[in-house]
């Protein structure tokens, strides 16, 4: 019951229309569209393009995205095409500064390399699995429930004597989400789970791995906030904490944060720039 209500509530923003329209003539709807994806392409992408614009790094225009009319105009134009002189590539010797690893070179900006969400990884390490393997099942089931994808089991890469961990022991579970599943999971996370987390006001404004990927760690109690688990909470012997890592195609943390905030992921201390 609770599950159903919650599921309904969770769907309220995604598809609340089903309570209004019952039968009868076909009602115009966004049936089959993914609202986060649409939101990204309609609004976020363009704003990101403006906010991450760098006037010193503009790639020259190409005909790559041109429509047929433009291609035709190009074909009949009487401008003589100058042979493209490709300057020999000078391998720039880049040195590490202060022992930090080198950052990848940022590509030139244009309309089609705007930061976007690439994948979401949900990962849980189960410490109890060291002593008894089947404790991993609980986390396995939980991750499968919340992501609707079969997780993969992670095996220990190295032995740690202090933890009695040996190489090759199953120690965690992981799900990698892309595309439709990714957006559905993000929707659930942002609309249901994050607002109900206790004493959590948002990601810190310093979050990010340096290359625009951002992770959140969740306590075991957060798992119960997912509508799929709330209804059958007592069927899980143990709740585990888990990490959610957002892999973006952004190049810097600032761009990564900007992208996530476009999906309504809250950030702590973020000042809204609206007028007072």
């Amino acid at each position, binding site marked *: 019951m609770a599950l159903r209500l919650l*599921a309904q509530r*969770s*769907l309220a*923003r*995604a*598809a*609340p*229309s089903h309570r*209004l329209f019952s039968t009868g003539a076909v009602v115009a*709807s*966004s049936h089959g569209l993914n*609202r*986060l994806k*649409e*939101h990204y392409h*309609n*609004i*976020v*992408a*363009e704003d990101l*393009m403006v*906010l991450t*614009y760098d*006037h010193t790094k*503009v790639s020259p*225009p190409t005909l790559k*995205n*041109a*429509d047929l009319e433009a291609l035709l105009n190009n074909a009949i134009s009487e401008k003589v095409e100058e042979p493209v002189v490709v300057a020999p590539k000078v391998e720039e010797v880049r040195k590490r500064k202060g022992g930090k690893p080198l950052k990848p070179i940022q590509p030139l900006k*244009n*309309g*089609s390399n705007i930061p976007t969400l690439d994948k979401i990884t949900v990962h849980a390490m189960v410490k109890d699995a060291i*002593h*008894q*393997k*089947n404790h991993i*099942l*609980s986390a396995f*089931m939980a991750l499968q429930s919340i992501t*609707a994808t079969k997780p993969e089991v992670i095996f220990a890469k190295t032995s740690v004597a202090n933890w009695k961990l040996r190489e090759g022991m199953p120690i965690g579970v992981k799900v990698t989400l892309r595309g439709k*599943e990714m957006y*559905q999971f993000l929707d659930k996370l942002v609309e249901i789970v994050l607002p109900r987390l206790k004493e959590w006001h948002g990601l810190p*404004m310093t979050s990010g791995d340096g290359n625009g990927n951002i992770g959140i760690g969740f306590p075991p109690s957060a798992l119960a906030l997912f*509508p*799929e688990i709330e209804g059958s909470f007592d*069927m*899980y*012997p143990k709740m585990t904490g888990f990490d959610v890592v957002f892999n973006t195609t952004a190049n810097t943390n*600032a761009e990564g*944060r*900007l992208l996530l*905030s476009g999906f*309504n992921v*809250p*950030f702590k201390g*973020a000042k*809204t*720039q*609206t007028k*007072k």
Partner: protein
Amino acid sequence: MSLFARTGRLSLSRQQLLRAAAPAPVTGGSGDQRLEIIRRVLFEQPTRETPNLEGEALQQHETIERAWKLHQNQERERRNRELEKKFRKMSAAMNELEKTSDRLFKAAIVKSRHITFPREMKIPTETPSPQGWNHDYTPPVEVVPAKNS
């Protein structure tokens, strides 16, 4: 949503599962019956037959998938074209601004590392809120601290 998409029947009820799980040999020290249930649910499920498309159904399927790819291509090209146009427009404006006024240009390229989208920005939903647009918004009154003269 995803939960309801994956559907099917399992012949045993929860209680039956518990009962059935009880005599099962428990490996290790603290055996929990619920773990056994989860194991059964995860790995001893009846699997569905994969749809075997052939003949006309296969032909239809391939046409549908082809059309879907075409549709996605069209959409992507349209989006990229629009963004590219906007990008070039913006780039041209910045070039113009650079030529016009150095001071304005320098102010325009200043960026904050701590900028986010405002929380007021809402993601579109299937239907609008019943209240509709808030036309009567007034800015919150600024509390001006008393000046010490």
